[in-house]
């Protein structure tokens, strides 16, 4: 007995382990069935199964855990004892399957781990929906995951319920709408019916008239010999069709009015009556009402009317004019008209004479302007608006006026241009635009005040001046591209130059008098001479200075050499160490500025390559630059000091 039980327990364990030992995303249904059937028979097996499954959930592999979870779900939905056993360890199970504890993340294959997590949450929700009322632990788990850790639950049931609810709501709404339509239909039905019938009658009458007229036209009877001619069947066919064509009523001046009326009526039938009848029929078919009597009778009538309409339509179409002459034809006409306006605007503008509308004039004006701009492209002649009226003598007065009229920018003041009406003050004070609120007919703002208010405001607009480039020749052969207003910082005042960059002599004195040219030339020559002399002098002085400096340098070098030798002697006289120190000092002294120089050169080399942007940036980083210059200056001073006073250091 005991043995047998142990054996069966082992069997369950083996079954479960086999079922979970697979890489499939699903359980083997045969194994699952076996597990279920074994577990169903005895509680002890169920206990063992629960234990084994919990052990498997602790395995360090998501796939094993996933499959175990599937088995757990199967058993959980079925056995009360299993639920009781599982629920005891709910937090453990959840932490192993959802992995919400940070120190116990889900194990290795991440894809499976994700599946495991979502499945676990789904199962938890399902369990809670089914058994939540009996197990506080389930409720706690759901509450914790949902409200504390904010896990997203699939909420399958809730979603389904919501969808159901929404659908019901939609249905109810559409039903209501239908009922409303039905009610209005009930009210409108008699009048609508009358309308339709009158339309049909009119059409009939019109057709009648047309036909009568047509009958007056004599039909050429078919002679015998003619018949002979048409013996061949093809010819006969053609003959028939022409006859048919001839039978059709054609539009001419006589029946134009009738045709127009017919067209109108046909349009009415097509666009309004047929559509509405169709709609009403569908409403009547769909609506659910208590008394079906009215509905049925109305439906019958509607169908009759519909048939009637259709037959009329057919007749119209047979008459041959209907399709061709309705709808799109009209539209085409309209469109053409529009084109005509735009074309004509350049020429006579006769059409526009008729309408005094200001807006239309302005439109045509603009069109004209455009045409003008395209025709004569000279920018200077933009203001020649008036001359456009050359072709149209008939409205020369208007064109003259237009030529005189000032250009006014668009603005709200144009709304009441020239109007001398008083304006009612609104309840809210001077809110002229707003027309809501109580109106007091005594509170009136006089017209002059309004005109004061709507003074045209203009913003000062600088007329753009193109700043000429400097165009002084550069060393590389190009011209200076700088654009300064008056003075280029590198090349002095900006003067007109030729293509090589040579200044074109264009002295401001040029426009004064031509007679002064000779005098001017002399003056310039004199100036040049003075300049030359001065330059030469400068050069001389500079040379002298350089000589002097060289002399001094030589002198100082001599002194320095002397100094060094003296020092060396002194060092030799003292200890070797101090000599070494001296050497050291010397080397460092010599080295340091060297090194610094080198460094500076390196950095300057670097700096030479930098772009304008960098230069700007450097200039902006003023503090560092100034610091650098200060440092350089002091360094230079130091060196100079040493050079100048070699005796004193």
């Amino acid at each position: 007995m005991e043995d047998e039980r142990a054996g069966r327990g082992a069997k369950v364990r083996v079954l479960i382990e086999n079922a979970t030992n697979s890489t499939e995303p699903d359980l083997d249904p045969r194994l699952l069935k076996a597990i279920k059937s074994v577990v169903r028979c005895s509680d002890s097996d169920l206990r063992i199964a629960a234990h084994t499954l919990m052990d498997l959930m602790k395995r360090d592999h998501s796939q094993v855990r996933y499959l175990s979870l599937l088995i757990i779900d199967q058993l959980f939905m079925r056995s009360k004892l299993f639920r009781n056993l599982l629920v005891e360890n709910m937090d453990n199970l959840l932490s192993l399957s959802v992995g919400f504890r940070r120190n116990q993340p889900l194990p290795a294959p991440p894809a499976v781990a994700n599946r495991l997590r979502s499945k676990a949450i789904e199962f938890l929700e399902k369990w809670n929906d089914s058994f939540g009322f009996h197990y506080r632990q389930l409720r706690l788990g759901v509450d914790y995951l949902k409200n504390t850790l904010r896990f997203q639950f699939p909420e399958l049931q809730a979603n389904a319920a919501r969808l159901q609810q929404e659908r019901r709501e939609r249905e109810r709404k559409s039903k209501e709408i239908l009922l409303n339509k039905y009610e209005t239909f009930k009210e409108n039905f008699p009048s609508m019916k009358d309308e339709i019938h009158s339309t049909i009658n009119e059409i009939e009458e019109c057709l009648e008239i047309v036909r009568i007229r047509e009958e007056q036209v004599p039909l050429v009877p078919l002679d015998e010999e003619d018949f002979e001619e048409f013996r061949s069947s093809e010819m006969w066919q053609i003959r028939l069709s022409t006859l048919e064509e001839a039978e059709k009523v054609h539009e001419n001046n006589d029946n134009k009015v009738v045709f127009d009326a017919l067209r109108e009526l046909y349009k009415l039938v097509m666009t309004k009556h047929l559509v509405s009848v169709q709609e009403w029929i569908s409403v009547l078919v769909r609506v659910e009402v208590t008394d079906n009597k009215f509905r049925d009778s109305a439906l019958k009538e509607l169908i009759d009317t519909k048939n009637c309409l259709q037959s009329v339509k057919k007749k119209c179409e047979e008459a041959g004019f209907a399709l061709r002459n309705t709808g799109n034809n009209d539209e085409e006409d309209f469109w053409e008209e529009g084109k005509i306006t735009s074309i004509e605007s350049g020429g006579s503008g006769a059409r526009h004479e008729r309408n005094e509308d200001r807006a239309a004039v302005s439109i045509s004006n603009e069109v004209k302007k455009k045409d003008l701009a395209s025709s004569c492209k000279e920018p200077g002649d933009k203001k020649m608006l008036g001359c456009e009226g050359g072709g149209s003598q008939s409205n020369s007065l208007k064109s003259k006026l237009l030529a005189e009229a000032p250009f006014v920018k668009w603005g709200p003041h144009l709304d009441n241009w020239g109007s001398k009406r008083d304006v009612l003050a609104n309840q809210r004070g001077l809110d002229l635009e707003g027309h809501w609120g109580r109106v007091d007919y005594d509170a009136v703002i006089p017209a002059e005040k309004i005109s004061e208010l709507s003074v045209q405001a203009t913003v000062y607009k600088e007329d753009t001046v193109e700043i000429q480039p400097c165009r002084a020749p550069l060393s590389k052969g190009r011209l200076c591209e700088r654009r300064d207003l008056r003075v280029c910082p590198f090349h002095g005042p900006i003067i007109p130059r030729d293509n090589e960059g040579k200044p074109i002599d264009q002295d401001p004195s040029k426009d004064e008098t031509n007679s002064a040219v000779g005098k001017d030339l002399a003056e310039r020559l004199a100036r040049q001479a003075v300049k030359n002399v001065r330059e030469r002098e400068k050069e001389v002085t500079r040379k002298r200075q350089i000589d002097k400096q060289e002399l001094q340098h030589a002198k100082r070098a001599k002194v320095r050499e002397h100094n060094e030798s003296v020092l060396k002697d002194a060092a030799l006289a003292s200890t070797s160490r101090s000599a070494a120190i001296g050497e050291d000092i010397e080397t460092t002294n010599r080295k340091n500025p060297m090194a610094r120089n080198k460094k500076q050169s390196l950095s300057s080399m670097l700096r030479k390559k930098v772009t304008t942007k960098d230069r700007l940036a450097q200039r902006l980083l003023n503090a560092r630059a100034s610091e650098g210059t200060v440092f350089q200056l002091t360094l230079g001073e130091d060196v100079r000091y040493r050079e100048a006073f070699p005796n004193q250091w």
Partner: protein
Amino acid sequence: MWREIGDREAGKIRPNAFANRFKRNRIESLQLSNHKDIVSAHRGSINSLQVDLTEGRYLLSGASDASVAAYDVQRPTEYEGNGIIGKHKCLFVVDRTHESGHQYAVSSAVWYPIDTGLFVTGSYDYHINVWDTNTTQVVTNFKMPGKVYKTAMSSLATSHMLIAAGTEDVQVRLCDIASGALAHTLSGHRDGVMTVEWSSSSEWVLVTGGCDGAIRFWDIRRAGCFLVLDQSQSQLGRRPPILDRSATNKVSSSKSSSPSPNLPVKARAAQRKLSNGSSMKQSPIAKIPAKGPLRQRLHPGMLSAQDRATAHYGAVTGLKVTEDGMHLLSAGSDSRLRLWDVESGRNTLVNFETVRLQTSKPMQLATSQNSALVFVPCMTTVKAFDMWSGRTDLTFRGHYECVNCCYFSFQDQELYTGGNDRQILVWSPSRLVYDEMDEGPHQDQDNWSD
């Protein structure tokens, strides 16, 4: 059970014993209650739980989101699932939006022991507020020098109305509700005081446990503490509880090992019986001078070696005096639970099978009827240990985060636990009567399809 009732009817069992046996059975079957569902009104971890001492009906909870709420644990406010689940919603909640509510976490919320008209809350915003329950208005408040970790009122007190407050500060302060002033400051601890507990045998004895690991006993009528517990001073076994006659074998072991002579203990026990009865003049302190060898304990400040003794390595996070006031249970951040003999001041060396305790927060322990079991929050679970052997009797799993506090209601034999997951769980004896379990929307039965 029916046999026992029959015995009781026949007079074979004494009423007390019958009740005790019945209660013990109920406690043995404690489990997560499905029919009592406290809807937590808190958005932070629950730090303190207490059911009022007069009616055993109103549960007071204090939480980290600075809110305090009270629940009626007897009568549910609504039912769910065809009346299976009784939802207990809070009767009132006082939170940060209240004009005189606390600003930071409420660390401790206790009822006034005499009635439910007042309750006391201590908070990390340095304040102790005394509230009128009916109007939920602050009656008095006390400003403390630091975060308040624990407040306690003596349930025995008839001559004083003092709130003992353990704070970040080294001094323990006693706040007098009657005058609205600080009555004493007790200095001796070298670090903040995590927990305070009034003795259950004397209204003047206060026990405090500090972050310095020391447990000090104070007689509030005198200056200084009169006892510092030392973990290195131990005795094997325990003295017999006054009313319990079953543990005689342990007495023998204590007799042989403990240095304290057997005779005075018995004499003291006899005396205690008397003092429990009526006279207030006699107190345990008054008797101590009679004992020669213990005389020096009265002035431990003189003996620096004794004054520096520690009860735990690290902080003392929880204290609980047993019902008879003879033993003290302490929990420390060294994850140890120690049972102390109050009389001798020695560690009884009971080995509690704790795994791990929460170390950073003060915790609230609870004992069951006759101090047979002690309920200890161990991380996410609550464990019930046998007081005298230290064995784990029951483990309560249900919280998803650390448990901070537990409270055992003697009247209903129910355990209330609150934790960091903001839940207040009720653990109740399994119900005997299942008649109202007419099933809900889904039957909780086996459902084998194949």
